[in-house]
Every structure is written in structure tokens, then in C-alpha cells.
């Protein structure tokens, strides 16, 4: 805080703001037009809209031929993102604990392995995963792609959770044990509540990455019944014959609104994951 005040005393902040504003102008314009274009029609080449219309939003109430129903797709996306969140939270909250606290054999190797997995670009695996999924019959199913996405995101979750567990004092667990609680009860009733903020943050984080995932569903679950929003959105522009930018933008806006809402309500929790602190 003091740092900030000192800088603003030495330099006037007005030029900085002006400069930043100028640089961000194209970005702002893009966002503005993203929205404006969805509710207006304009002449080709003109920046000024000529009339108001809701026609681009018609995808909400009528299903186009050859496209899945938007609500079905939204529901799929929601299921996809929440399932990933659930799997990641469940597995990494337990795995992180084990890696942080229990004397498992080859713990170091395992931790290093998890780290490597996290750094590994998942796209390189996609052909192999495709083959595997087809072979076990999970190709073109939500379950299949949920499992794959969760597995790819798990290393990060496990590492984060381990880090948070490391900050919980040992004595709390010792006290729990001599108080007569089982190891599981100690974890569930005493340790888990200490890292609640971390759980919140990781949950949000997982939900958002799930919501925005494109490549995996595109390759592994492109079917109409299991499509998610990102795939649906991409489907709108692959079709060269009837290019509809208005609808494309409308779907785009529709797609980011939940993300924005989540950010507005939970940004405090999200900051936690980058700050690494456990204060709620």
C-alpha cells in the first residue's frame, strides 16, 4: 500500500492511465462489438449498426437443422465441467493428503512423476487416447471425455493440494489421534476444514477449465448428443456455406456469461490458488 502511494506521489498517474486506455481501446472495442453485433444488423463494411434485431439469438428458442439443441449442449457442458470438478476435488484432496502426510513408498518419485505429467502437453496424447477410448467403448460419450480431462488436470490439483496440506500443522493431527479419532476422521473432520479455501479455489479453477475445454471434447466426443458449448460454437464456423457471424457471436456471449458470473462472485477464492495462502 505504502509502495503504491509513493509511486503515485512521484509520477502523476494520469498519463499512465491515458496510455493504458489507448492501448486497451482495440480490446474494449472488440468486446463492445461482440455484444453489439449480436443484437443488431449492419451494412457490410459499416461500423454503425443499422437496425435492432434478436434474430441472432434465435438459437435459444429454435433448433437449427443439423445442430443439436442449445439447452442440451449447455446442459452437457455443465455436466462436463461439474463432473471434472467433482473428480478432481475428490481425488486430489485425498491424493494430496497422502503425498503430504503418509510415508508411502517411492513418494519422491511419484511427486516428480506427477510434476512431469503436469508439464506434459496433453495434445500429444490425443491420438492414443482416441484409440483407447474407442477400444473400451467410451468414444463419443461424456463419461469418456470427463475421465480424460480430469486425468489430465489431476497432476496440478494434486500438487496444489499437497502444498496446502503441507501448511497444516502436524500437531492438529496428533491431537486428533490421541483424542481417539481414526486417521480418516482426522482427515475429514480436522484437516480438511483447514484447507477449505484451497478446495474452493481448486473447485472453481477446475470448473472453469472444464467449461472452456475444446480440443478434448472436439476430438473425443463430437456427437450431437454429447456436444459441449465450445464444440457447438466451433461447429458454427466450419460450415463454409452459411456463415453466420451474428449467431456465432451471440453463442460466444452466451458461452462466457456463466464464466463472468463465477468470476464476479468468487474471484476472492480464485486469487487464493495463486497466492498459495490458506486464509479464507
Amino acid at each position, binding site marked *: 500500500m505504502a509502495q503504491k502511494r509513493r509511486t503515485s506521489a512521484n509520477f502523476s498517474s494520469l498519463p499512465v492511465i491515458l496510455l493504458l486506455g489507448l492501448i486497451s481501446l482495440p480490446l474494449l472495442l472488440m468486446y463492445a462489438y461482440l455484444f453489439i453485433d449480436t443484437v443488431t444488423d449492419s451494412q457490410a463494411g459499416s461500423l454503425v449498426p443499422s437496425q435492432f434485431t434478436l434474430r441472432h439469438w434465435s438459437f435459444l428458442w429454435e433448433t437449427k437443422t443439423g445442430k443439436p439443441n442449445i439447452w442440451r449442449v449447455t446442459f452437457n457442458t455443465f455436466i462436463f465441467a461439474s463432473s471434472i470438478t467433482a473428480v478432481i476435488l475428490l481425488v486430489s484432496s485425498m491424493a494430496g493428503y497422502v503425498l503430504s502426510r503418509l510415508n508411502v513408498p517411492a513418494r519422491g518419485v511419484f511427486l516428480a512423476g506427477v510434476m512431469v505429467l503436469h508439464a506434459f502437453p496433453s495434445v500429444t496424447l490425443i491420438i492414443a487416447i482416441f484409440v483407447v477410448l474407442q477400444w473400451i467403448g467410451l468414444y463419443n460419450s461424456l463419461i469418456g471425455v470427463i475421465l480424460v480431462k480430469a486425468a489430465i488436470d489431476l497432476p496440478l490439483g494434486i500438487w496444489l493440494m499437497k502444498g496446502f496440506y503441507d501448511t497444516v500443522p502436524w500437531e492438529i493431527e*496428533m491431537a486428533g*489421534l490421541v*483424542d481417539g479419532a481414526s486417521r480418516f476422521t482426522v482427515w475429514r473432520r480436522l484437516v480438511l476444514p483447514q484447507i477449505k479455501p484451497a478446495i474452493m479455489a481448486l473447485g472453481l479453477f477446475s470448473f472453469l477449465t472444464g467449461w472452456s475445454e475444446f480440443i478434448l471434447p472436439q476430438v473425443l466426443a463430437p456427437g450431437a448428443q454429447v456436444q459441449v458449448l465450445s464444440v457447438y460454437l466451433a461447429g458454427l464456423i466450419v460450415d463454409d456455406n452459411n456463415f453466420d457471424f451474428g449467431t456465432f457471436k451471440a453463442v460466444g456471449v452466451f458461452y462466457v456469461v456463466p464464466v463472468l458470473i463465477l468470476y464476479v462472485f468468487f474471484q476472492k477464492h480464485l486469487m487464493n490458488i495463486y497466492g498459495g495462502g490458506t486464509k479464507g
Partner: protein
Amino acid sequence: MRILLEKFSKSFGSTKVIEDMDLDVGSGEMLALLGPSGCGKSTTLFSICGIHRPTSGRILFGNKDVTDLPSQERNVGVVFQSYALYPHMTAAENIGFPLTVRRVATAEIRKRVAEIAALVHIDNLLDRRPSQLSGGQQQRVALARALIRRPDVLLLDEPLANLDAKLRLEMRSEIRRLQKETGITAILVTHDQVEAMSMCDRIAIMKAGEIVQIATPSEMYNDPRTAFVAGFLGNPPISFLKGTAEQGEFVLGDGSIRLPLAALSGMPDGTPLMLGVRPEHFGNGGDVPVTGRISFAETQGRENLYDVMFADGSVLRSIQPVRGDLKPGDDVRWNLDSKAAFVFAEDGRRL
């Protein structure tokens, strides 16, 4: 319940912390574990309550071998060095937790929490979380949590370390009273010798993972087995003189001071020795006069403390009733009580 450690050893990886310790704490007894930081006091406690597995040796409660019994089945109450309260629970929930995990009925828990809270005087703080309590209050919550399930054994790891002097005095007698009333066998770990001497039936002094001596407080004070023990008990502490034996006399450093001591008769000339003299045994009333110069004087209210330096630079401490006639730099000729002085060999063994 009697606690017995037999040939108990504990190492962490390759570091040996405790080696072949034997310890016998009688039923209903309160024992103090006293020793410098890092000597293995907490490690011993953690092994008794089952958090650490002994590397070798046995631990018995009564006649029952608990060496391989998990913590949950040992019925031991522990007050940790850092209290280890559960931060997300209120004081009442903290205290009631041992009963909650045993599935005791809620009404019964509430009743017993109220009882024990009244006993340690925190009945008005039960709705607060640990972060809203002072150190002394947290400590009492921890004590209540350790006592609520009526443990067979109570282990206290420096429970009074974070309290102010007055509260410490109060809690000292409080804990002792509770321990006597309930007849619990207790082990108290402490750095504070006054605490150990005033609260406990016996004291065990530890050094580097070994028990050097175990005795009642007065035995320990009047009959220390090593120079380490003598140096550990007593405030102000004992002072040591280095010298040699010569014809039944203790000869200080350069030979300028010779003290005839009965205990030295028959000792070969030239044996290196250490003489331990407690401050109350040097001053007026001893039998061997020595001359020195006051190098430091300090008043402690009821008594004055003097450091007397001899020609060779060695120092003896003296504690005397307050007097105003002496100041640093004055030469004095005071008596040393030769019967009360301890003679140690060079390696610290008492002779």
C-alpha cells in the same frame, strides 16, 4: 496407572534421539522431564502416547504392553507444546471432540464440557474460537480437552511456557490439584526447573536422549550425580571452580588459592577436579575462608547476588540477605562451606 519404559529407543532415520531409556513412573505419580532443548523430551512423550513407534524396546501401562497399540486405544490425554487446538471449532467443540468421536450422546457431552470448563475456569469462553482466546485461555482449553475423557495417563508438553508469571503460578497449583484429585499418572515436560521442583513428585533430568538422574526434587538438589545435574537445578545457578587435588587440598588454577576439603583426602596429587558451590554455601557461615574481589553485584529484592572473582579469574557466586555496604571492586574474605560443596571429576562425575 504405572508407566514403564523398557530399553526404549527411538531414531528418526539415521539420527538416534533416544537410546535404551528405562523409565518407571508409579501410579498416581507426577514426573517432570527436565532437560535442554532438543534432548528428546517431546520425542519420549510422543512415543508414550503412541504417535511415534519406538524403534526398539517396550512401553507398558500397568501390566499391559502398549508398544504396538495405536494412540486411539491408549487413553492418554496430551497437552501439546503448541496446544494444537482445532482452529475451526469453538472451545466447547474442541473440548468435546474426544467424546464426539466416541459417539457419546450430545446432552452428555454438553454436561461434561460444562463441568470440566468450570474446573479450569473457562465456562464463559466456550463459544469462542481458539483465535479469539489468549494464550492462557487456549492452554486451559487444551487442558480441558485432555482431561475430559478421564485418561489413564496425562502428558503435558511445556503447558505453561506461554503464560505470564502470575497465571503460570496459578496454573501450576491448579494442574497439580487436578492431577492429585483425579489420581492420574502424569508426565510433565518443562524447561523450567522451578516448575519441575514445585509441581512434581520426582524429576528426571535428560541430556542428549539419556536420563542422567531421576530423583525427588530435594534429593536432586542436594545430591546431584553429575555436574550437569547440579548446574541444571538451582536459581541462581551453582558456580564451578576448576583445579587439582594436592595433599587433600583443592588447588585453584595457578595455585594461589588452596582449599582444604575433607572429601579430597586420599586422592592422588594432580587429579584434575571441578568444585561446585551453590551461591547459598558461599558467604558468611562457611568454614574455609577465601579472598577475592567483587566483580558484579545485583539485588533481587529480598537478597543480593554477588560474583566474587579470584586472582586466577575464576568466579564464585554468593547470595546473601540484602546489605548496602558492598559494591563491585571491593575486596572480601568470605567463607566457603566445604561440607556442602560438590566435588566432580573432570568428566563431570560426582566423586
